[in-house]
């Protein structure tokens, strides 16, 4: 049996069967509806749309297929409801436009008409969302055009088209994240598949009812639960507390006295709760319902046969557990898929302000540490992994950390260079010399060179009496350190700072950077800076709040 030419009467029957099949499965489509708005009305809308089309077709049955097509397009346009309904009307508007002038059509015409429908449908959208009915229609039409090249039998054509539509429908969750999240296929796409199934059934001379729903009960249950989550926010707000799932295996004597129809069964059950799903065939009926009295539901089911595969869950309990768990364990941070960089610079610093400063000039990671708090090799290794770069440059900014940094460099899988900066200003000078387009060896060399371009002065306080480098130091005195060497002490930190700078500043000094620590007040800084500007009129004075402990001032002289 084959159909090589399609006339208006046959096409009208196809439309009617398609509409009936969609109508029978409208509830399934509703349950899948999570996009664009999870209001569960896609099936209803599509059904109303196509029923309006079919009605117009019935009123205008003709041998002329072009006329039937026009009637379908008109009916769909008049009755279009919802997003999917409007898209469906566009698909068939394009379809009927293509066959308008034809008395009968061949497989080629049919395929091209499907394609024309897709084109029309895509024209009416600004930003097509893939993974919807549009995608399913497009993939199916493309397949149809390919098949029609060598195939005259419209039945085979429709079979192949439907097969592709189904395959495309199964792919929709990969294209549209919201579908994947809920674990369903696109509702509009499913609706279109039902229409195509109706078409094929008519071509094959079958009756519609024989086609088994392609959606599984699990998908529907997931979709229903998803919708409940949307609406139920407080545990107390759950109106129907038990998620009840079971199957009834029909028993002949019971069904004889009490004939089963899916529609009545569904209507009767709806009084017990919400989120109701019913799927039946000749032998069993599957039920999912959220009910307050699950016992009553089960008793009702037993009127038709024996109960199998029962599952009842207390949703209030689950929900409060869920809320409790969410409180107890904060949601894990989403894994950020960082792009792997060519270079990453890691530096070690103490004080938020200094860390910020380093980041602002290009450091990828700043490890907390410094005098009296040295990061371990492991801390550095961790930072190397975190920066996610092929080449890593480490600036220890302290002579005590250089060893640990070198060890980490040896162990790490990445290419790691340690530029032996001993002070924060040296580290900064080195970063400023970094050239992102160069290679690792070049950068290591230029950055090492940059270390020498800067002089470092530090003011810190003595923790005990001692005598170093010939300088007598008393506890709590402020010490001035020039490039690692203690040169003076003073009871007052500002005086110490001025004295230290007087030994370090020379005619070549152009930029004096002052990084003040957490123990220094704003007023002290302002006072000091204005004095410094007066004393060294040729130098530019820059001030940063390093918030570092231990060191009242860090000076960088370039």
């Amino acid at each position, binding site marked *: 049996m084959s159909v090589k030419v399609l006339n208006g009467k046959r096409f009208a029957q196809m439309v009617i069967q398609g509409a009936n099949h969609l109508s029978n499965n409208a509830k399934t489509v509703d349950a899948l509806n999570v996009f*664009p708005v999870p209001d569960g009305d896609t099936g209803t809308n599509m059904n109303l749309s196509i029923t309006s089309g079919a009605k117009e077709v019935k009123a205008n049955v003709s041998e002329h297929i072009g006329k039937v097509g026009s009637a379908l397009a008109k009916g769909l346009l008049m009755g279009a409801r919802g997003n999917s309904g*409007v898209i469906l009307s566009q698909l068939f508007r394009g379809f009927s436009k293509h066959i308008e002038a034809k008395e009968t059509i061949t497989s080629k015409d049919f395929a091209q008409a499907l394609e024309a429908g897709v084109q029309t449908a895509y024209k009416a*959208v*600004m930003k097509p969302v893939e993974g919807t009915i549009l995608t399913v229609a497009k993939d199916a039409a493309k397949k149809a055009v390919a098949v029609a090249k060598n195939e005259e039998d419209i039945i085979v054509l429709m079979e192949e088209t439907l097969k592709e539509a189904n395959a495309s429908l199964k792919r929709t969750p990969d294209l549209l994240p919201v579908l994947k999240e809920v674990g369903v296929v696109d509702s509009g796409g499913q609706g279109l598949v039902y229409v195509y199934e109706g078409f094929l059934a008519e071509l094959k001379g079958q009756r519609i009812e024989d086609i088994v729903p392609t959606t599984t009960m699990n998908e529907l249950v997931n979709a229903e639960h998803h919708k409940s989550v949307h609406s139920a926010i407080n545990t107390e707000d759950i109106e129907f507390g038990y998620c009840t799932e079971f199957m009834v295996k029909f028993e002949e004597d019971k069904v004889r006295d009490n004939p089963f129809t899916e529609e009545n069964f569904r209507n009767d059950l709806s009084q017990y709760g919400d989120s109701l799903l019913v799927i039946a065939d000749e032998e069993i009926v599957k039920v999912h319902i959220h009910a307050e009295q699950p016992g009553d539901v089960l008793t009702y089911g037993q009127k038709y046969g024996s109960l199998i595969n029962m599952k009842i869950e207390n949703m209030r309990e689950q929900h409060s557990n869920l809320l409790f768990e969410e409180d107890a364990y904060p949601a894990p941070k989403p894994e950020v898929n960082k792009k792997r960089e060519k270079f990453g610079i890691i530096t070690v610093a103490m004080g938020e302000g200094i860390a910020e400063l380093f980041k602002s000039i290009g450091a990828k990671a700043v490890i907390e540490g410094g005098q009296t708090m040295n990061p371990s090799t492991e801390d550095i290794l961790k930072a190397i992994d975190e920066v996610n770069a092929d080449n890593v440059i480490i600036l220890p900014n302290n002579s005590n950390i250089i060893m640990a940094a070198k060890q980490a460099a040896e162990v790490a899988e990445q290419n790691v260079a340690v530029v032996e900066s001993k002070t924060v200003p040296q580290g900064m000078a080195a970063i400023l010399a970094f050239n992102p387009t160069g290679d690792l060896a070049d950068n290591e060399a230029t950055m090492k060179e940059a270390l020498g371009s800067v002089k470092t002065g530090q003011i810190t306080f003595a923790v005990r009496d001692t005598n170093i480098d010939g300088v007598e130091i008393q506890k709590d005195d402020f010490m001035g350190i020039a490039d690692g060497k203690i040169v003076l002490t003073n009871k007052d930190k500002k005086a110490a700072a001025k004295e230290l700078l007087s030994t370090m500043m020379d005619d070549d000094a152009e930029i004096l950077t002052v990084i003040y620590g957490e123990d220094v007040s704003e007023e002290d800084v302002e006072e000091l800076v204005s004095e410094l500007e007066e004393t060294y009129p040729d130098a530019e004075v820059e001030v940063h709040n390093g918030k570092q402990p231990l060191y009242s001032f860090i000076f960088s002289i370039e």
Partner: protein
Amino acid sequence: MSIELKTSYGQIDISNDVVATIAGGAAIDCYGIVGMASKSQLKDGLSEILRKENFTKGVIVRQEEDQLHIDMYIIVSYGTKISEVAHNVQTKVKYTLNQMLGLSVDSLNIFVQGVRVTNP
């Protein structure tokens, strides 16, 4: 003018531009709409589809007392059921604003400013 939400930690101010951008973004997701139109289009007599970066010009957010009203100026595609497309835009925008900002819109007026005919 902005929308204020009070939380236990303090206040959150959401500017009307944010609301307009979200509304516009949600609208163009809808099938059958080909763009946002400028509000003053009728006056100018120009049929211009706003480009993405300024489609908020076609979205007017108004607050009257505690109520939130939104006017949207759109252009639809020829051959679609215009009332239905407009209705879809209303539902989608309302839903999206509720999801993203927790705002409930009291009225959402759609002004269809133009129809784009693509088929000759």
